[in-house]
């Protein structure tokens, strides 16, 4: 066995595992205490998406503006498997995830682009997938613009459970990236791809793996979302604001950390729902202002309050 010359120093791993277990346990138990399960479910969805985005943006520096494309691909992969082949939900989830991964593979050439080019191309890709899925000419297969209805397999309890498991899985990936030499290699690629190559890191493989991992979790949670809500339109699961929320939440907390995106989702999505319920008339206004102020005064996220170089934060 290869001795790991690099961390994990266990003192770093343990606090992260504690956080992971605490968050997962809290969401597993929450429906017993708080009855708006859908709010909890959506929080989990955003936790998974924000962490999935963290995997690709935080660790490799690619900002996928069309991240929702994988979410939608997972949702449609799941639904079409159920509708056309009567696949049982768990198997359909695997298929949905596979669809998201295939989409990610098709889009790997985009990784040649950088900065805003990548962000915009990725956005275009997710819009393109939406246009295809919602096209009336494909109604027989995708149900076109008329949307999906999966009432037969509707099961909020089981799908909530699947979401909690996915959350645990996603957080485990981030813990792995934070504590493994592979995670360090990804960050090395983000810092300087040429030097990373000279450090022996396979740059292309590292990027593609991170890309596929982030697509995987988005596809998986997309499938579970379809299962949980069971009736939805193409615009629902390819909604640009899903990408933007995931990005804002992850940035607000602080990327390349485990706790950043968690804090980002809990605080911002919490505020979002509080405003939505308490002062709906000024909802959009307050939320927009919040985002503006966040970027102006806390551009490196909440974790930057704890530590200037966010690499020390779990």
């Amino acid at each position: 066995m290869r001795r790991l010359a690099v961390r994990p120093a266990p003192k770093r791993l343990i606090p992260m595992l504690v956080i992971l277990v605490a968050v997962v346990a809290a969401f597993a138990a929450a429906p017993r205490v708080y009855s708006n399960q859908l709010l909890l479910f959506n929080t989990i969805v955003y936790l998974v998406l924000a962490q999935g985005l963290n995997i690709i943006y935080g660790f490799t520096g690619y900002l996928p503006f069309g991240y929702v494309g994988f979410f939608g691909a997972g949702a449609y992969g799941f639904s079409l498997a159920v509708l056309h082949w009567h696949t049982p939900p768990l198997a359909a989830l695997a298929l949905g995830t596979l669809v998201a991964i295939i989409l990610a593979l098709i889009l790997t050439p985009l990784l040649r682009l950088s900065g805003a080019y990548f962000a915009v191309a990725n956005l275009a890709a997710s819009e393109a997938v939406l246009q295809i899925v919602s096209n009336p000419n494909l109604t027989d297969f995708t149900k076109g613009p008329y949307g999906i209805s999966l009432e037969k397999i509707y099961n909020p309890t089981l799908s909530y459970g699947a979401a909690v498991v996915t959350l645990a899985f996603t957080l485990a990936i981030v813990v792995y990236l934070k504590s493994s030499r592979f995670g360090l290699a990804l960050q090395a690629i983000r810092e300087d791809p040429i030097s990373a190559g000279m450090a022996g890191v396979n740059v292309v493989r590292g990027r593609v793996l991170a890309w596929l991992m982030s697509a995987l979790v988005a596809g998986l949670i997309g499938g579970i979302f379809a299962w949980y809500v069971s009736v939805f339109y193409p615009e629902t699961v390819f909604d640009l604001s899903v990408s933007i929320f995931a990005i804002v939440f992850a940035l607000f907390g602080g990327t390349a950390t485990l706790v950043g995106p968690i804090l980002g989702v809990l605080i911002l999505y919490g505020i979002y729902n509080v405003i939505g319920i308490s002062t709906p008339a000024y909802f959009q206004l307050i939320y927009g202002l919040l985002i503006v102020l966040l970027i102006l005064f806390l551009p490196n996220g909440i974790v930057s309050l704890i530590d200037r170089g966010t690499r020390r934060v779990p």
Partner: protein
Amino acid sequence: MSREGSSGAGRPPILAVEHLVKRFGGFRALDGVGFTLNAGEILGLVGPNGSGKTTCINVISGIYRPDGGRVLLDGHAAGGLPSHRLVRLGVNRTFQVPKPFLAFTVRENVEIAVAYGRDPHADPREFIAFAGLGDVVERQAATLNSAQQKMLDLARALSTRPRLLLVDELAAGLNPSELEVVAEKLISLTHLGIALVVVEHLLGFIDRIAHRVVVMNAGRDIFHGGLGEASRDPQVIEVFLGG
């Protein structure tokens, strides 16, 4: 002019470059360069700016794909392999403008290269100490001065246990006492059997460490031999010293 280095006992040289060509658009940055290098040898690569020295190193280290010619490592074709494959084969380098991972600490910079290099069991501290960075192990690379960053580059390169090390302008910007230390360090590497290609403007430094030099001009090798001979070669004098 001989293109052959002194190849020992029938074993292929550790590095052989043959008729290497690299084009950027219509411009031939390399136009048929060739030389060889054996284990434990230091080859100085000299020539005026724009003569193709750094491009040559970039091709050998896998940053550019060659457009013609061959790069042989131990007699096996290695041109166009990605950097990480070459690192595995025992090639590494430093950069003229040092490129450490700025957000990482010195230790992390070296650790990552150890982990993905040829000897994951190596102790990162060994390389950090060799590069004289023992006092700044936990500092972020971004806070180092440029001389320290250059040494960090060297430490990172060495921590993959290369057999062929390409050194691009390591000496520039060092003060005389530092220069002497670096010269001794590079020479000490040859005792481990490492072969070095050293690109350098400071001819005194080249004279101090190199066994042989290759003088380049306009993407070609125009002279092979000792630096002393080079300084008497009329062609070299014309292009390099500007007449």
